[in-house]
């Protein structure tokens, strides 16, 4: 999922043949752009108009001055990435048009409304026209006409709207987009449509078909570093809680749920994804990143492999212990289950680590060790479950 800023989205709309107002980024404003202008904060969040991210200017000078004001401060919670300045439109009426993927239907859907200009969530339900497109058929004329009539258009504007629907649908497919949303879609005094805004989300997995398409990494320092290690890291709470490292999205979600249900506080989670394929050194790198970036009281490593060898994880942990003196055995709870379990235990022999075979028991142990701090610092005895192994 790659979200685009408005000015990036408008480039794609223009490539689809859809009219957009003349404009440019404030640092490289085209010379010809003057007169009545709109100055727009480029942010990834919605609702920027209400937050003061859209201002009107008379002439370049005023526009550039407003741009300097806008770039200087965040917009609500959103960071202002850039400022885009474009010609102000003479709008007769604001429409809404979107081409998107409906994940539940598993097909593209077109949405159109004669009540554009507001967030789609706020639109009256019955004013929103919806048309699914069977990908085996592609967009057909009857589908387009149904939408055009649904928004109450006739005459030239109806033809213009029909062409826009076709362009938006073609753009969704050819650009491998998840969403192409034009809101508002301005009907101007001369009866033509022009895209006043653009919200576009592209599919990251199709990058091999689109040279230059790259995800824009975002998130906390920890999350960005995790991405570099080819794992998925999510920072949850502050330092001093539990950091959990799992294989698989499902197990990651379940571990987070279990620790919280037990009253534990989670500093962050890591899903190892394919990192195991890079060998034990990578596992040690992940532990180091977690320890330094999240500063958790306790790290729980909860791995359940059906086919991959637990030996890689075990060797990675041994290396992390050698590399990281702060990573004392009392700060680490291991739950290792599955392929090559005895071999993994043998690798960990002598480390003094507690290994717990059951998911729930491992989470309980992690929560107990994470609070209070005085407990976490001292050595604790492991719970007297027959499935626990202390490898000392």
């Amino acid at each position, binding site marked *: *999922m790659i979200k685009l800023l408005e000015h990036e989205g408008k480039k794609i709309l223009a490539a689809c043949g859809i009219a957009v107002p003349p404009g440019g980024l404030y640092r490289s404003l085209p010379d010809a752009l003057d007169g009545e202008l709109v100055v727009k904060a480029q942010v990834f969040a919605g609702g920027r108009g209400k937050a003061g991210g859209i201002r009107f200017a008379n002439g370049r000078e005023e526009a550039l001055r407003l741009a300097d004001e806008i770039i200087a401060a965040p917009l609500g919670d959103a960071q202002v990435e850039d400022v885009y300045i474009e010609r102000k439109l003479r709008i007769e009426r604001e429409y809404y048009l979107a081409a998107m*993927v409906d*994940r*539940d239907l*598993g*097909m*593209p859907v077109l949405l159109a409304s004669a009540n554009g200009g507001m967030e789609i*969530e706020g639109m009256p339900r019955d004013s929103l026209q919806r048309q699914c497109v*069977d*990908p*085996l058929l592609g967009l057909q004329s009857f589908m387009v006409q149904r939408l055009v009539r649904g928004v109450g258009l006739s005459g030239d504007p109806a033809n213009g709207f029909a062409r826009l629907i076709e362009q938006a649908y073609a753009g969704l*497919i050819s650009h*491998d987009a*998840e969403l192409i949303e034009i809101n508002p879609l301005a009907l101007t005094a001369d009866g033509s449509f022009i895209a006043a805004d653009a919200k576009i989300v592209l*599919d990251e*997995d*199709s990058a*091999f*078909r689109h040279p230059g398409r790259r995800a824009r990494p975002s998130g906390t320092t920890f999350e960005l570093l995790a991405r570099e290690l080819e794992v*998925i890291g*999510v920072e*949850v709470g502050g330092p001093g809680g539990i950091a959990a490292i*799992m*294989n*698989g*999205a*499902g*197990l*990651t*979600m*379940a571990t*987070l*749920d*279990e620790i*919280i*249900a037990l009253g534990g506080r*989670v500093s962050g*989670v890591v*899903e190892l*994804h394919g990192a195991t394929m890079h060998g034990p050194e990578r596992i040690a790198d992940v532990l180091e990143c977690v320890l330094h970036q999240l500063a958790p009281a306790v790290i729980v490593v909860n791995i*359940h492999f*059906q*086919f991959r060898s637990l030996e890689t994880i075990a060797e990675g942990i041994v290396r992390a212990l050698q590399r990281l003196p702060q990573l004392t055995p009392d700060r680490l709870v291991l739950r290792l*289950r*599955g*392929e090559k379990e005895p071999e993994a235990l043998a690798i960990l022999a002598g480390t003094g680590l507690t290994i717990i075979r059951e*998911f*729930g028991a491992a*989470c309980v142990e992690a929560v107990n060790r994470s609070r209070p701090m005085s407990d976490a610092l001292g050595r604790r005895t492991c719970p007297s479950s027959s499935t626990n192994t202390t490898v000392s």
Partner: protein
Amino acid sequence: MSIIIDEHNRILIQGITGPTGRSYAQRMVAGGTPLVGGVAPGRQGESVAGVPVFDNVEAAVAATQADAVLSVVRSSLAMDAALEALTAGVRTIVVYTENVPLHDAIRMRAYARARGACLLGPNSAGVVSPGKASLADLNDANLRPGRIGIVSKSGTLTYEVIDDLQARGHGESSVVCLGGDPVIGTTYADVLPLFDADAETDLVVLIGEPGGRLEYDAIAAMRTMRKPVVAYIAAQNAPPEKRMGHAGAIYDRGDTTAAAKLAAFRAEGCEAVGRVTEVAAAVDRALQHAIA
């Protein structure tokens, strides 16, 4: 009986000569799964794990009467491979490949449904009917034949549930992993009626997650079932707008949160839990209730 796959199927692996394909082939042959061949363009005449390799699915089907496929080709080829298999008349296809482009998933899904075939995935951990056949990323050693059906989007949660059920003496009739991607070929609502009609299934465990409305479609399908369903909805505490490994698990509009889904299943009167450690006990409660 079991559902979707059993010992009478004749199975191919697309991408059998790659490391993933070879590893699957060896496991399937060792586990007694009826693997009859594999496909890898330009490699006809070779063999992997004792089964022949063919240039294309049509040739493989002609020679082996294969009717089911596990596809482990790389993501840029996944759609073509799926369309090829479906065109050759394959009735069941598991697309194990992850990172398949969204619009490719949409097209393969549409074609599979138009042909009346069962597509699991993309990004599916597969399907297994223990003791009969496995097209799954699940170790046979951890499975045993039994009377619980499992339908899930997540592979790793399925491992946990299987282990906990095993500890309470339950095995599985079939385990169906739908795939972790936002657009998938087969949904809960498609699978539940199959389990309901299966004489070897007593109860179905449904493993859901936040995002999308497939769990609500499942609730609608559940209303016409005779057998109990136990729902486990994971990611009750997923941070909003965060990807937790696959795009299927992101939050979206309003009531598609894990909490809302859990409440919806409970409102139907079914056993529904939000922790993986609670699933096995919920299954036992539901089974006792069904007997009483």
